[in-house]
């Protein structure tokens, strides 16, 4: 059901090949990703082409050369350090830069979130530049980001498709080798949508055949509901479930009761 991305793998192996192979590979990659993507969701590919403005593409190119090219290459072709960005689309850039993951600072198992380094305008210039080089998933349309869909359906889809990595309450969870699926609380609507279509790092792609745009809207609705919901039962203890509850009862529950027992028995002396 999930289509795992091969892009990064091929990028990682490329260091060992003949230099000309790079060009060939890029060409093949371009055609394959571009073609396949157009086949899968022509709708998103179309919307993207409408908003490209020449000025901001140039701004974006400058920003890219200054901040990203050392790793991703001057022509987006990637390097030993980082994968190629050909065909990742505006959505991937908006997600990666907009959540502060890019530019990446240190090599780690996973690019962590950090404070965002660019203004919204700069981010959209970068996104337009990357999208102008090769088509890819576009920034999602507003109509799917209003968080006003069917929360019940969204929560069910979330339990089935996302909870095994992100935890039912969206609190996040561990993957192998130090990788992790982050908490989804406080992530913007657009970034949630973009994560589903661009599949950052170890996350699988949820294209429109898996989850229709309406389904994605429902999932966003459910996540936003969880986030904004007043916790009816009291403090949620980070929504970590039984481990947090167990620690709490041992430390604070039993702890306070022991304090009382000491007090009761000390009074008599």
């Amino acid at each position: 059901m999930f289509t795992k991305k091969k892009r990064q793998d091929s990028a990682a192996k490329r260091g060992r090949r003949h230099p000309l192979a790079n060009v060939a590979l890029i060409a093949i990659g371009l055609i394959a990703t571009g073609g396949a993507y157009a086949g899968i969701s022509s709708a998103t590919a179309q919307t993207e082409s409408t908003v490209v403005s020449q000025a901001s593409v140039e701004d974006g190119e400058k920003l890219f050369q200054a901040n990203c090219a050392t790793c991703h290459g001057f022509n987006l072709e990637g390097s030993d350090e980082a994968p190629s960005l050909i065909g990742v689309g505006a959505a991937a850039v908006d997600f990666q830069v907009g959540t502060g993951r890019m530019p990446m600072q240190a090599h780690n198992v996973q690019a962590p979130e950090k404070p965002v380094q660019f203004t919204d305008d700069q981010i959209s210039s970068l996104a337009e530049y990357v999208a102008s080089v090769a088509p890819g998933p576009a920034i999602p349309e507003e109509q799917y980001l209003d968080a006003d869909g069917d929360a019940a359906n969204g929560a069910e889809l979330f339990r089935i498709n996302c909870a095994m990595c992100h935890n039912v309450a969206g609190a996040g969870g561990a993957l192998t080798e130090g990788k992790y699926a982050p908490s989804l609380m406080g992530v913007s609507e657009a970034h949630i949508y973009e994560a589903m279509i661009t599949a950052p790092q170890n996350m699988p792609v949820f294209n429109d055949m898996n989850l229709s745009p309406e389904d994605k809207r429902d999932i966003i609705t459910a996540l936003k509901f969880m986030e904004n919901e007043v916790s009816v039962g009291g403090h949620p203890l980070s929504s970590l479930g039984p481990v947090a509850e167990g620690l709490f009862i041992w430390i604070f529950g039993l702890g306070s009761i022991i304090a009382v027992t000491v007090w009761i028995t000390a009074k008599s002396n």
Partner: protein
Amino acid sequence: MSTATASQASASTAKKSGGFTGKAANYLDERTSISGAVKEFGRKVFPDHWSFLLGEVALFSFVVILLTGSFLTFFFQASMAEVHYDGSYVPLKGVEMSIAMASTLDISFDIRGGLLVRQMHHWAALLFVASIGLHMLRVFFTGAFRKPRELNWVIGFVLFILAMAEGFTGYSLPDDVLSGNGLRIIDGIIKGIPLVGTWISFLLFGGEFPGTAIVGRLYTLHILLLPAILVLFLALHLVFVIVHKHTQYAGPGRTEKNVVGFPILPVYAAKAGGFFFIVFGVIALIASFFTINPIWNYGPYDPSPVSAGTQPDWYIGFADGALRLVPPHWEFVLFDRTWSFNILAPLIIIGIFIVLVLIYPFIEAWITGDKREHHILDRPRNAPTRTAIGAAGVTFYAAMWAAASSDLIATHFHLTMEGVIHALQAMLILGPFVAYFITKRVCLALQKKDREIALHGFESGRIVRLPGGEFIEVHEPLDEYERWRLVSFESHAPVILRPNAEGKITNKARLRSALSRWFFEDRIAPATKKELESGHDGH
């Protein structure tokens, strides 16, 4: 100390004079002769020490569980028939779920006070098992399980197991994703048992997992069978406590023949009554301010979704952790059957561990050859080998327990999951030995220090220059009471290997004497009277 010894008569309750209460008491007494029992019970003396109240915490949280649980039974429906939820929690409106889940949601959102009671019930359950655990540790480390209380240790431990069973069956009732995941693991464990596993699983679930029977069956266990057995064992436990009288720590005036403390009536009963309300209050406060098991976040169970970070309640954690700690690939096919040692190994190891804890009093009694009654508790340091064994056991348990949260440890401390698991595997195997060794050395060192202080008094920090130019530190002598606490313990000698009546030395005797040597070989004798007199020279 303002305490009364057992020999002093306590205030008698059933006064047979005057007023309505008097008459009523008289009426009752003439028909039941209950005053004898009340007098007998009321005269029991209960010594004062905070650690003696842990069992009471367990008892009181159990009472809270019974009260809140009864309330919940009025509204909970243990049925797995499917309905479309139609309560007031919007994000689940129209979602298909079992009646069990829907009625739990109703308790949480549509029944006045329901959520508070539900949360009190769950928090009290966690506190119940936690306080039993701590109570058990107290009893273990002070040697309170020794003759004549071995059987009560066994009963107490059975109570602990029953409490866990109660907890687990309760955890599975709401039929949400978390509890379903838990049941799925249990199902997997059962199916891992060779030959009979699959049959047992089908029997339990009434067919293929999850079926439509399990919630109803667990409910019967949870509210009928297990509580009945639990109450029975609890009553036995308490009767034994009264029959045996309470243990006490060594101290002036305290011997193996008396108990120093307050009589139960009226002082102690009043205190305990107050304490009940405090425990109740703490649970109610926690339940009002802190969420527990928000099933509406988890959603209804169906076998497809599994959540990251799925854990059982803390007291089942050690079993979950044991499963996580098994290295991969411990599974092979033999005789046309799959032998899942990645499930069987933890089962066997946990089984052995439980049995060892259960029968520990008998093991220790056999090794030490100690057949006397003990009513004075050991200070943990004065039984170094037992304390070290206890520390090793706690470490072993803790490694399994921590492993149940390996994923959360990994994400919260930015570690790799594999690293955490390997570290805990090492802790599981090596930890107990390290803990044993360190604890034993620490106990012996503490004993040495006690002996030193008993003989020479405290270092006062006052340096005095003698006329000859020599500097000495003045040692303050202890008062009698303090010294008594330090020297009044017994030092045991290993069982000596002797031929039996037929003049033979059996292998059993050999084993026993070897174990006994191991148990007692390192020991520090308490300062004797003679040593005290000669050593007591003021510095």
